[in-house]
């Protein structure tokens, strides 16, 4: 028998070492920790570490580690008491603008971290938390868009002096009636220039009617916009919750998943996710606001507000020019000069009021007031989070009116980042499309811990039983198979850790199932070897034939299981996706460990010996 090629041993050993290294972080456990990020999502200041250590020194808390990780500052402690004291101190010292969350930090040592090794992420079913599935009401979004066209199109035609005789709204289109064909065609050409996103047709049944419908691309764009707007709003809100590692993600066309590990009071979170921010365009009273701020005496038509940046007092008129519900779109862009700007689109009624206002107020300032319900998270003596609502009203932009405008206008004179932030805030404040909560799953922390314990026990029992069976039945070769199986489990864990895949309870089930399937490959090989021996082949020839002939069969069988898992991955969500990933990974690694791994061992032990029979039965 030819000895197994040296390079195969080298590959096997390298894979073993890498597998062990990358699986190792899962053994270290976790320290209680505090995680800090800016509320706006901006990077932390360069000297942030000094601020933190000063605060910790004042509070007399000893930190175990304190450094930057993924744009967030992570401080780990030896015990939970220190963690809570530090969190309170940091919250007090840092003030608004920062999110301070309680979390856990892996104890993985520095040298492992430096090669990118990290523990697996645990799914909500293993660590507890809340999972929300929200659905954006698409029908409502589209209906509102059609309603806007119902006011916008006639207004445009009046401005162009093209007379129509009637207008109405159908399910997904606007219909305009005309007195004669000339007016209709004039309207059609004028509208098609101004509203290129609309498809204009004349229904055969009524030749004097023009039907305006959003093109499919436009309809999709509107839905996209509404969903993204909700995503932005939800992210802002979730950041305020002070939850470590929250997940806010779009799922499919109109759904949004929000996952909050460690949170169990779904009720409060739900009310927060459901609430919407609004904004108002208002005129600025140019008289000195500092007097009003100091004395508390505000002119009767005015209200006193502060700017978001710099907390400068400003007096605003009580009258609202346009509100968030009239905002159709807001995006950061560049103006004609190439400098950053925010481009805003209002709907028909908003545009009309804006036009009337700007006509009389060119050269005067106008402000955007942002109103939002904010959540403040504090921790009580027991370390439980206490969340309170607080209404926040801040001025996010003041700009001088440069000309008369209505439907579309730009805010210029901004830095690039300012433009970006303003656009996000404007979108968050526009009345978001209604959102329904279609699924909520709350998993208590005790259930999560139980699941881990049970999954672990089942895996150990499964492995033990398979081990006993294989060794009794296949003797030394059974031991090879078990060694390969253990390596397989290590590789699954390492692979999951490297891919940052989430381990779920079904994932643990998949790992246990993989043990059964991975051993199958060895059973197939060993039965083949026995068969060859029965047929009178020499032991060495039998080993070779067993491995060579079984290879393709095993590959074929594994491919069909993979097909099943790919389908599962494509359709599944959450825990089931975890199952699919774990099973797929397990099958791929088993193809390597069960064949190359166990073959190497068999060759290592038997290749150079003179044999009459094999210890395989």
């Amino acid at each position, binding site marked *: 028998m030819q000895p197994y090629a040296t390079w195969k041993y080298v590959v096997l050993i390298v894979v073993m070492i890498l597998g062990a290294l990358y699986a190792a972080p899962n053994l270290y456990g976790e320290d209680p920790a505090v995680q800090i990020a800016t509320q706006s999502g901006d990077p932390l200041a360069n000297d942030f570490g000094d601020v933190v250590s000063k605060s910790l020194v004042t509070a007399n808390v000893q930190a175990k580690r304190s450094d930057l990780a993924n744009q967030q500052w992570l401080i780990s402690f030896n015990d939970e008491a220190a963690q809570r004291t530090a969190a309170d101190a940091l919250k007090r010292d840092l003030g608004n603008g920062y999110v301070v969350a309680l979390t856990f930090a892996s104890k993985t040592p520095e040298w492992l971290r430096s090669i990118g090794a990290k523990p697996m992420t645990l799914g909500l079913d293993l660590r507890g938390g809340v999972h929300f599935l929200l659905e954006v009401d698409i029908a409502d979004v589209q209906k509102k868009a059609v309603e806007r066209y119902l006011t916008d199109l006639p207004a445009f035609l009046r401005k162009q002096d093209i007379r129509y005789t009637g207008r109405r709204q159908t399910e997904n289109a606007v219909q305009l009636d005309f007195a004669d064909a000339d007016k209709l065609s004039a309207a059609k050409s004028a509208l098609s220039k101004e509203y290129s996103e609309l498809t204009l047709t004349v229904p055969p049944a009524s030749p004097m009617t023009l039907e305006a419908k959003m093109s499919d691309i436009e309809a999709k764009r509107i839905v996209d916009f509404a969903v993204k707007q909700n995503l932005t709003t939800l992210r802002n809100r979730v950041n305020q919750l002070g939850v470590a590692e929250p997940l806010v993600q779009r799922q499919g066309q109109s759904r949004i998943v929000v996952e909050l590990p460690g949170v169990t009071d779904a009720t409060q979170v739900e009310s927060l996710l459901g609430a919407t921010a609004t904004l108002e365009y208002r005129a600025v009273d140019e008289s000195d606001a500092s007097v009003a701020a100091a004395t508390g005496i505000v002119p009767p038509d005015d209200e006193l507000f502060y700017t978001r940046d710099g907390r400068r007092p400003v007096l605003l008129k009580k009258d609202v020019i346009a509100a968030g519900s009239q905002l159709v779109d807001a995006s950061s862009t560049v103006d004609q000069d190439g400098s950053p700007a925010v481009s805003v689109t209002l709907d028909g009624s908003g545009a009309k009021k804006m036009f009337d206002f700007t006509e009389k107020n060119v050269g005067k300032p106008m402000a955007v007031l942002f109103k939002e319900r904010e959540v403040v998270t504090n921790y009580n003596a027991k370390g439980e989070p206490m969340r309170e609502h607080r209404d926040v009203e801040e001025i996010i932009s003041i700009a001088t009116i440069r000309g008369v405008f209505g439907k579309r206008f730009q805010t210029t004179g901004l830095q690039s980042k300012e433009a970006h932030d303003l656009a996000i805030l404007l979108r968050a404040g526009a009345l978001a499309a209604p959102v329904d*909560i279609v699924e909520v799953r709350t998993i208590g922390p005790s259930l999560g811990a139980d699941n881990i314990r049970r999954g672990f026990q089942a895996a150990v029992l499964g492995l033990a039983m398979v081990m006993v069976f294989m060794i009794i039945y296949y003797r030394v070769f059974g031991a090879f198979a078990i060694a390969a199986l253990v390596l397989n489990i290590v590789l699954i864990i390492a692979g999951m850790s490297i891919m940052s895949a989430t381990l779920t*309870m079904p994932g643990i089930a998949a790992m246990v199932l993989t043990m059964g399937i991975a051993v199958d490959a060895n059973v197939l090989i060993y039965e083949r070897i026995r068969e060859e021996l029965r047929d009178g082949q020499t032991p060495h020839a039998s080993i070779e034939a067993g491995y060579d002939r079984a290879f393709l069969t095993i590959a074929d069988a594994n491919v069909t299981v993979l097909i099943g898992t790919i389908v599962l991955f494509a359709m599944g969500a959450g825990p089931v996706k975890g199952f699919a990933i774990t099973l797929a990974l397990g099958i791929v690694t088993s193809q390597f460990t069960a064949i190359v791994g166990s073959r190497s061992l068999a060759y290592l032990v038997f290749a150079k010996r003179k044999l009459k029979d094999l210890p395989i039965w």
Partner: protein
Amino acid sequence: MRIFAKVPNINFMAQRRTGLIVSSLLTIGVILLLVFRGLNFGIDFTGGVLVEVVYPQSVELDSVRQDLAAGGYHKPTVQYFGGTQDVLIRLAPEDKASSSEISAHVLQALGAEQKNVQLRRIEFVGPQVGDELTVNGSLAMLFAFIGIALYIMFRFEWKFAIGAIAALIHDAIMVLGFLSIFWVEFDLTTLAAILALIGYSNNETIVIFDRVRENLINQRKGTIYDVVNLSVNQTLLRSVITHVTTLLVCTALFLLGGASVHSFSVSMIVGVIVATYSSIYVSTGLAVALGVSREDLLPPEVKEIDEMP
């Protein structure tokens, strides 16, 4: 250790007609069962509210039901989940009420504060999500069938593909039938088990097919009937051993994995047992009945020189 001293010689194919007829009748019977009795769908599919709570000591289900009835919930499903302290409550989907309102109400009705009842989990699934999952789940099975069929056609031959798919459908239906008879909850994890099982049960079929092909190529004598019989006998041991190991791990999951993987492990256990039978009598039997021949599987012969001009 040897179970068989030599390769067994059982004439499996002698009963192949009986096997196919029995399988067909069973499948039809189970389909009728599924139509009339249906499955115990979990809230993943039906929508609704599921609450799992733990009492500090054993609790009577009737007293839980009374508490809930007093709180205005008249048709809850209440059952033990794991032990007699752990109770699972299912409520039908309600219109309008938000999930958190429902959960707060339920806990209040149970007297959670006074009785020190601990909340383990609350799941609320809207009806639209459930409907969609039913559609997606069915589609997933269909795609898995098609994917596997294409692969077998590519690696073997269409008669084998039909046999294999018939076996997969047979296995999936038998497991569903078992779940229906014993009224085991069918949730998303159970669906995952069935999809994994489809892949696993196909494993069996492929091992036999592979051996059939190898034997057809190596032994030019003997009818297809003999070759199939020989192949099934040769792979029988391996099937038994593999099933033992898979059954061992699934039993471990069933015993220790907790209630959340019960339906998963039960489906796997039943599926593995059914797959042993179906790989012989449904997939292989059907492929033979469809007239698989030696020519179907042999590599195309090199053309003789006399065809040269």
